[in-house]
């Protein structure tokens, strides 16, 4: 259709009417129904109406779209003003009065028309008003629910029965500056309203329309704003001077002859219409919302912020509602029960205040349309039933109550959740403390003060690959007595274990089980040891898991196997000993220290010699020896004090035992040292026993180098003896380890208890 330019007033009016007619909310108006009624109410000859519909194109479309509707309305206006119906005249006619619709069924329109009419056409108003007024208020009660009949007027008038015109309120018409509690209770049925209406219109800043107050006021309700009364109260809120209230009319609407009356009626009408049409008296119109938002800004410039309760209290106290009612309004609108109002809550509260001032009873529960939503003005027309007295449903929407409890419960849930978070934090603290435990472990574990045990090595709680490899190697190497395959199988098991501590402990246990490895662990860097310990210390469970250490090295494994294992072990040991974090097998296996000390203490020289001689042959089988010799040699060479013999032998054998794993001198030396230290403490702990054993072992050692001739037998014998010694020492070691573990466990449990007992300060 042709483009249509409408004035603001017209725009509002038309949209209002359109919405009114658009019962289905489909943005289309059927040719029948309200539109037809409306047109008929225009009191134009039917052929004109037909012509109009044709012109606007509705006949083509079969329905009235928004533009068609507007065009039709304009044409009606044109027709009513006596101008010929021409499409061209749509835009050309200036100052076209708004289309008038006669009271009849369409009292609303009539009123509406009246409203929108210039003040000049007052005559019309009274008539229409009068026409409208007389309608039994009772009728208004019906059709809340969008019944097509345009009985909103009745709704308007409904208030009549309920609220006698509040004459006192009339008087205050002048009180707009203050908060006029609005008389609208009667919802505009009263003439008084007009007074209010007028001021409302004028006062309402939004509606500073060029036209009379009422018009804009009406224009304000294009959508179904529930309590139009609200608008009046708006007025009071803004405290603008009331426009001509003095002219307030007697309660009887019939007598209203002033625009105001009509205006009020119309307003009421409008409101009614809208509400009846849309069944949601609690809906906030755009204008109202805008107004609320502005008011909100005056208190709290940040629209996303809160209005504290005290400020809200002052603000709403101005409305002169009884505190009890304000309290109730607050209860309804403070959705999250936080003592502050968000924008949505504020709008809801304001709306309720307005409603209350205008006579609507407060609902028991917050109407859904007032519930704070993320989206403004949801278009959910709630079928709010009217409350008995007001005709507007107090709309006890059931939805609301469910939300309110949930909100507070949500809020209450938060502290609990926060608490649990805190508890989680404490838990993590605990775990971190256990980490500290492990650190302590490292200090405790090596009882050797002399050895450079205490490195500030960060305890690695998670198994690093390298570490795992080390551990595995240790494991494999440690148990040289076991056949290779089982051992080899074990590392995979180890690696499979998710439980690092367990695996580590396993490894540790393994090392414990194996005298060599344990000694290696001791003698080698403290790190792996500490790591193991720390791991073990980390969790009691780990301790317990690892409790069953791997079987102590069985002394009766096949030599070949054992030798190979030894190789592995020595490699692992070397690796472990040499570098805690480095890749493992970098270092040649440290020579198992066991034999070393014995040899060193004993006839180290012989051992060395033997090792040298046998090393090339028996390296694969008896890497121990080779290692020993190497070890001895190196150790001896490097430790003049304790191992003179060893040194001698070491030096002698060192060069010869090239075939053996080329343990870098430091490794064996260190291990040697450590083994020495270990032996020393062991000696200290076990007193003479160990020394006896060692002595015994040592005693056997010297024979080895001597029996060069009877290599095999001697070697085997010595091997056996060594193994026995190893076993003994290993057992000793395992026992000590077990004791250590127990102590660590105790310590951990005590720490845990301490943590538990300590009051949670952050709670």
């Amino acid at each position, binding site marked *: 259709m042709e483009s249509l330019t409408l004035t603001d007033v017209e725009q509002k009016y038309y949209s209002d009417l359109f919405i009114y007619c658009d019962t289905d909310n489909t943005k289309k108006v059927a040719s029948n129904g309200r539109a037809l009624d409306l047109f008929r109410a225009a009191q134009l000859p039917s052929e004109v109406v037909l012509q109009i519909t044709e012109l606007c194109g509705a006949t083509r479309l079969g329905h009235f779209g928004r533009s068609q509707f507007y065009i039709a309305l304009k044409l009606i206006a044109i027709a009513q003003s006596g101008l010929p119906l021409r499409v061209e005249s749509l835009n050309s006619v200036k100052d076209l009065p708004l289309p008038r619709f006669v009271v009849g069924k369409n009292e609303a329109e009539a009123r509406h028309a009246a409203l929108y009419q210039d003040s000049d056409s007052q005559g019309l108003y009274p008539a229409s008003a009068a026409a409208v007024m007389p309608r039994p208020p009772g009728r208004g009660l019906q059709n809340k629910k969008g019944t097509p009949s345009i009985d909103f007027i009745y709704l308007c008038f409904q208030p009549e029965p309920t609220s006698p015109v509040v004459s006192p309120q009339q008087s205050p018409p002048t009180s707009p500056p203050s908060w006029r509690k609005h008389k609208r209770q009667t919802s505009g049925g009263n003439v008084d309203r007009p007074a209010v209406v007028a001021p409302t219109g004028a006062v309402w800043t939004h509606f500073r329309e060029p036209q009379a107050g009422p018009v804009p006021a009406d224009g304000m309700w294009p959508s179904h704003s529930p309590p139009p009364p609200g608008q009046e109260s708006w007025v009071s809120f803004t405290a603008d001077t009331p426009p001509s209230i003095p002219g307030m009319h007697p309660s009887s609407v019939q007598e209203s002859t002033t625009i105001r009356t009509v205006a009020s009626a119309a307003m009421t009408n409008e409101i009614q219409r809208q509400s009846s049409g849309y069944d949601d008296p609690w809906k906030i119109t755009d204008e109202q919302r805008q107004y609320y938002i502005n008011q909100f800004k005056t208190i709290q410039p940040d629209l996303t912020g809160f209005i504290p*309760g*005290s400020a*809200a*209290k002052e603000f*709403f*106290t101005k409305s002169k509602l009884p*505190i*009890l009612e*304000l*309290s*109730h309004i*607050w*209860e309804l609108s*403070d959705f999250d*029960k*936080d*003592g502050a109002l968000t924008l949505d809550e504020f709008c809801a509260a304001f709306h309720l205040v307005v409603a209350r001032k205008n006579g609507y009873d407060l609902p*028991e529960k917050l109407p859904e349309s007032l519930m704070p939503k993320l989206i403004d003005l949801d278009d959910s027309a709630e079928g709010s039933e009217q409350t008995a007295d007001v005709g507007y449903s107090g709309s006890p929407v059931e939805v609301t109550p469910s939300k*309110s409890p949930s909100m*507070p419960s949500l809020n*209450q849930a938060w502290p609990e959740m926060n608490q649990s978070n805190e508890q989680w934090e404490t838990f993590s603290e605990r775990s971190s403390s256990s980490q500290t435990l492990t650190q302590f472990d490292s200090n405790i574990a090596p009882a050797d003060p002399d050895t450079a045990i205490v490195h500030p090595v960060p305890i690695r709680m998670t198994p690093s690959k390298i570490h795992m490899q080390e551990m595995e190697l240790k494991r494999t190497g440690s148990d040289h007595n076991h056949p290779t395959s089982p051992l080899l199988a074990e590392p995979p098991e180890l690696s499979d274990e998710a439980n690092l501590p367990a695996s580590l402990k396993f490894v540790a246990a393994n090392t414990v089980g194996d005298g060599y490895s344990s000694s290696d662990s001791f003698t080698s860097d403290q790190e792996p040891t500490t790591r193991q310990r720390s791991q073990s210390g980390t969790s009691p469970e780990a301790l317990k898991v690892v409790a069953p250490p791997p079987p102590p090295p069985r002394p009766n494994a096949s030599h070949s196997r054992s030798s190979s294992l030894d190789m592995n072990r020595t490699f692992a040991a070397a690796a472990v000993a040499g570098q805690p974090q480095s890749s493992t097998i970098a270092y040649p296996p440290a020579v198992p220290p066991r034999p070393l000390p014995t040899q060193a203490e004993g006839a180290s020289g012989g051992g060395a010699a033997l090792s040298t001689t046998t090393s090339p042959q028996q390296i694969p089988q008896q890497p121990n020896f080779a290692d020993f010799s190497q070890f001895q040699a190196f150790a001896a060479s490097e430790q003049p004090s304790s191992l003179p013999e060893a040194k001698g032998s070491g030096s002698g054998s060192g060069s010869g035992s090239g075939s053996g794993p080329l343990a870098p001198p430091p490794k064996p030396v260190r291990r040697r040292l450590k083994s020495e230290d270990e032996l020393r403490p062991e000696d200290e702990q076990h007193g003479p026993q160990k020394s006896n054993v060692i002595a015994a072992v040592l005693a056997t050692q010297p024979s080895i180098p001597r029996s060069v001739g009877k290599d095999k037998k001697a070697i085997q014998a010595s091997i056996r003896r060594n193994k026995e010694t190893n076993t003994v020492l290993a057992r000793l070691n395992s026992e000590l380890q077990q004791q250590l573990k127990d102590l660590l466990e105790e310590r951990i449990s005590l720490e845990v208890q301490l943590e538990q007992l300590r*009051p949670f300060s952050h709670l």
Partner: protein
Amino acid sequence: MAVCIAVIAKENYPLYIRSVPTQNELKFHYTVHTSLDVVEEKISAVGKSLGDQRELYLGLLYPTEDYKVYGYVTNSKVKFVIVVDSSNTSLRDNEIRSMFRKLHNSFTDVMCNPFHSPGNTIQSKAFDGIVSGMMVQTASTV
């Protein structure tokens, strides 16, 4: 199901008192009043660790032949008293606790209302609703 529910302010005057059989209210008022002594006693008894959380729920204050009185104190010395009928299948402690919790929450909501000044009687409909929910449903109150 409570027979009478009362909220007593810190200064020991009632903020809210409501009983079900409206015809014997005075008796309940008296009962609640006397229970205040027990409440005070219990409060002072727990005064050893004032900093720590004192148990808000006081438990059974005293039983009489007809009914039992339970008490609950908030941290601001506002007391809640619930009187339940003895003949009632004795409510479990948990239920009483949950009733007090609900009361406390509802009371907090009332306090949050800026239009309510502490010290005034509680006139909140929401609070009334909660209390009604907890009261014994006698035939008359149906």
